């Protein structure tokens, strides 16, 4: 994970040299917002990558979720957000579970079942979008979906949220260290943990200062003040925290790693393998739904021009660039955050220095290839390295 973060910093430095706007508060906030769909799609894929499975339909399932959300809330039915958004996410969860069920019952490779799914849900997404007689575009209309990336926490709430998250993490880490020492187990030196937590706090403060800097326009005629953390950021952090908790602290999480490592061993240990595979497929669908709503927010709606087939590749790329293995059993949810930000930096930076779309694709492809090479080498160089 460290080489990737260093790579990201070098990329950022390069873009800053080419365009002084790169490290501005407005652009970095924008970068976070651009990255959120990739991060969420990466987390969606990690549920299945951990099992050695993959979901190739996730891009179009995301589109279906986005279309359902926008139609229910904004264009046709004008439901309250607390009804419309859950229905959209429940629908994509059901889609994920259905594909999981088919994969398990047929004992078929997940990439084939979800490849079929990808085509099918592409059709469903286009039907939903085009059937609205809106010329192939269904726009958000200033409601909750629009607000996900376009509205912000107040500066005070941004401070409180960030410090509570950082403080909570520090409490968890110190408590774990203390409990291990109390039971006579070895733990990281106290000083080392303190340094890590100070770094975390420092990073949090930098983030808050960044988000709380006015990124609005300020000319002789317009004084537009935009400050605070966009809602999308706490949403991503909440999803990341919940998923990491499930993977590291519950039996379900442990069993997903076990199945990915050696499915026969898991079965003989009494793990209900199919039940947990189904859970992973459903979680992939659930996450795809959230990603869809966030993506619709960044686009201001959803159109029949959405590239669902490419979105899934960015999801897989985000996971693998961050360090999750394609071979199963090795990965963490935080990998999607790192990988998604790398993709965000490339897209944002290349757009800023005004390269053409062709370079964007080539650059992302090369970064993904590098990540896959690292994964393959790590796998060959003994599984001794930590997951």
């Amino acid at each position, binding site marked *: 994970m460290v080489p990737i973060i260093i790579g990201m910093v070098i990329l950022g430095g390069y873009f800053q040299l080419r365009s002084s706007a790169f490290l501005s508060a407005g652009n970095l906030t924008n970068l976070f917002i651009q990255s959120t769909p990739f991060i969420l799609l990466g987390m969606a894929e990690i549920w299945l990558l951990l099992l050695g499975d993959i979901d190739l339909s996730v891009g179009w399932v995301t589109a279906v979720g986005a279309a359902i959300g926008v139609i229910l809330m904004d264009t046709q039915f004008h439901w309250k957000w607390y009804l419309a958004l859950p229905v959209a996410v429940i629908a994509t969860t059901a889609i994920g579970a259905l594909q999981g069920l088919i994969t398990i019952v047929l004992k078929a490779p997940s990439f084939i079942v979800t490849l079929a799914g990808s085509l099918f849900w592409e059709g469903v997404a286009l039907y939903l979008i085009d059937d609205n007689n809106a010329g192939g575009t269904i726009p958000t209309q200033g409601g909750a979906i629009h607000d996900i990336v376009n509205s912000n926490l107040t500066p005070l709430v941004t401070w409180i949220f960030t410090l509570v998250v950082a403080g909570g993490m520090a409490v968890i880490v110190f408590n774990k260290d203390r*409990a*291990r020492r109390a*039971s*006579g*187990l*070895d733990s990281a030196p106290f000083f080392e943990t303190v340094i890590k937590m100070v770094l975390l706090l420092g990073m949090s403060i930098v983030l808050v200062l960044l988000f709380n800097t006015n990124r609005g326009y300020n000319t002789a005629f317009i004084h537009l003040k935009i400050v605070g953390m966009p809602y999308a950021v706490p949403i991503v952090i909440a999803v990341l925290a919940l998923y990491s908790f499930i993977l*590291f*602290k*519950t*039996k379900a999480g*442990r069993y997903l*790693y*076990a199945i*990915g*490592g*050696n499915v*026969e*061993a*898991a079965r*003989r*240990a*009494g*793990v209900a393998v199919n039940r947990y595979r189904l859970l992973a497929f459903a979680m992939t669908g659930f996450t795809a739904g959230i990603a869809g709503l966030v993506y619709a927010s960044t686009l201001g709606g959803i159109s029949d021009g959405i590239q669902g087939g490419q979105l899934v590749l960015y999801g897989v790329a985000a996971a693998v660039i961050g360090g999750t293995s394609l071979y199963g*059993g*090795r990965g963490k949810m935080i990998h999607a955050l790192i990988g998604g930000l790398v993709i965000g930096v490339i897209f944002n930076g290349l757009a800023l220095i005004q390269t053409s779309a062709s370079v964007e694709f080539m650059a992302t492809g090369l970064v993904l290839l590098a990540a896959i090479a690292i994964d393959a080498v790590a796998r060959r160089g*003994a*599984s*001794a390295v*930590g*997951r």
Partner: protein
Amino acid sequence: MPGSPLLSIRGLTKHFGPVEALRYCDLDVPAGVVTALIGDNGAGKSTLIKAIAGIYAPSSGQIFWEGKEVQIHTPRDADELGISTVYQDLALCDNLDIVQNMYLGHEDTKFGLLNEIDMEVETTKLLKDLSVFTVQSVRQLVGSLSGGQRQAIAVARAVMRDTKLVIMDEPTAALGVSQTQLVLDLIKTLASRGIAVLVISHNLTDVFAVADRIAILHLGTLISSGPASDYDTASAVDLITTGGSTRIHSPLASTP
């Protein structure tokens, strides 16, 4: 019934269609003793242990556990009696650490969440009890361990939950000299703790190094069993290959 062996098999027969894999086998496995089951390929060793482990239902015959007749239809039945089997492939997850492998499927939880600290403490204690000192940390990934260490972890896992009988299928196959010694020492440790050990092996050197009792299968029939001191390598080879020997060193057998 005091005095009866932990496990007694009487007249066990197993057909696969017309093929008779086991024919009227009688075998006693006492507690605290290492019993070696030897025989050539296809002699029925695997079929016999799979019948005990609940993977194959016997066609006929009886199994007595602590003197009482029992039916072992599924691996779960065997598990509930206290029978654990370590197969050749060990069934370990390389991507999980030692603690996680030891507790796989039986995780210790506190408020519904994994109780890592207690599991780590218990694992460390158990491995120390079994004298498996060679692992540096119980948080090492199992994929990074040597063959003998992996075998030791699989065995330790098999005995951690009130296990009375451990069945091991070729525990020393494909191990180096010092690794083999590690596993043989572990087998002796288990027996000294009162656990019955049933070992399948091709390696007669290892068998004589570790076994207290020997049982020999030939073409599906259990032709000979008794204390290991009754046999030597030559007589064992005779029995394995031909099903008979004039060289058994038993008080009953005539010595030339």
